[in-house]
């Protein structure tokens, strides 16, 4: 009985979260979370926060973390919904490192759309998958 109650609460919370997350403006705006890595087994948490003003995309990659990078270049090709993002930050030794994401938005109409593609951090190349929160 108690389990059913908490299950119901969980479902309700999920629905509220999804509803609150609905966003219909620029498709890239929002917080995207997921992971990236050079292999299927070596994965790192990835959070990208993007803003849009006038004609400029800005934001941060892994905001608040040691490997935080500020978005310097953000391009969206809306003919095929591909994305190119370049961020600049520092590695754990304090050395400047560039992070480049090239991806594609899928399921464009959904609040929790996805962005997948390749990620280059310094000299390390991998793939990433992000879901919009």
């Amino acid at each position, binding site marked *: 009985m108690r389990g059913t109650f908490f299950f119901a609460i969980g479902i309700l919370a999920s*629905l509220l979260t*999804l*509803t609150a997350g*609905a*966003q*219909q*403006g*620029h*498709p890239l*705006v929002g917080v995207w979370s997921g992971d990236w890595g050079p292999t299927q087994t070596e994965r790192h948490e990835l959070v990208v926060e993007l803003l*849009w*003003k*006038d*004609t400029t995309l800005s934001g941060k990659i892994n905001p608040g973390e040691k490997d935080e990078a500020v978005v310097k270049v953000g391009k*969206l090709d*809306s*003919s095929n*919904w591909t994305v190119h993002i370049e961020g600049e930050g520092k590695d754990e030794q304090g050395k400047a490192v560039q992070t480049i994401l090239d991806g594609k938005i899928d*399921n*464009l*109409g*959904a*609040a*929790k*759309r*996805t962005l997948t593609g390749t990620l280059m951090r310094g000299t390390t190349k991998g793939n990433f998958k992000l*879901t*919009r929160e």
Partner: protein
Amino acid sequence: MRRRYRFGVALTVGALLGLSPVLMRPAFAQAARAADTKDDNRPIPRLPDGHPSFEAPPGEKGVWNRQDYRPLLPTTLAETALRDRGGRQNDGPPGLKPKGSDVPFQPWAKSLFLYRQTHEIEPYGRCKPAGGFRNMATPYGTEFVQVPDQQRMYIFQTGGPHSFRPIYMDGRTHPSDSDPSYYGHSVGRWEGDTLVVDTVGFNERGWIDAYGTPTTKQLHLVEKWTRTDFKTLRYEITIDDPGAYTAPWTTGMLMSYAPGKEMFEYQCQDGNLAGELMIGGDGVNKKIDRTSQVAP
């Protein structure tokens, strides 16, 4: 015999009384319709302060109905893909609505607009509030409630999510820190006989029309209502959103006064069969087919 006669009379009288509402309804309805429509050419009603009233005259009933709800004139199918949804289409006076190809979309906004023509059902159809053009284009009637004493007015819509929109007429400005909302924050003033309403503070969760014209949080709307005669309201809206367009642009529609009509309790959620579409799926484990133009 006499008892049988009395019984027959009683039956007849009872039947007539029972049927009287049905028998008399056409006569009442005719009289009501005559009362509702006989003065379509009368002067525009005015408030005590002299400004036009958009309300039904005292002692009467009436709401405003959209004449159509299409914000753009179709050009080619590829340009705008403005599908005919079976509703009434009225282009309105020349110059009121732009061609789809004349709207100064930013590239992403145009792509998203075209995408939405076939891939999404509007949030309003999923019982989300919608401001601007869509607010006025609601079905089943719109009612303006003007409260000069409080220096504000309200727009009530019958269709949609059973909500209302306040417009502050007391000279206040927009708050600098308001939470973004579906209807935004509206302040109004009179320019002659035209009501001018300025709105900012929108969230990005609704569409401002039924056709998926994109907007961002930078959206700034200027709406103008002019009661051009007793039975016609001209609605004009300027969309100023530098996040989605390269320049402001204007559209509008005409609204017709529907005498004798009243708002009724319409609960979008009760009749909505597209519960999952309200959520949209999680996009990962559960994908919702939103390609249908009609909610399942």
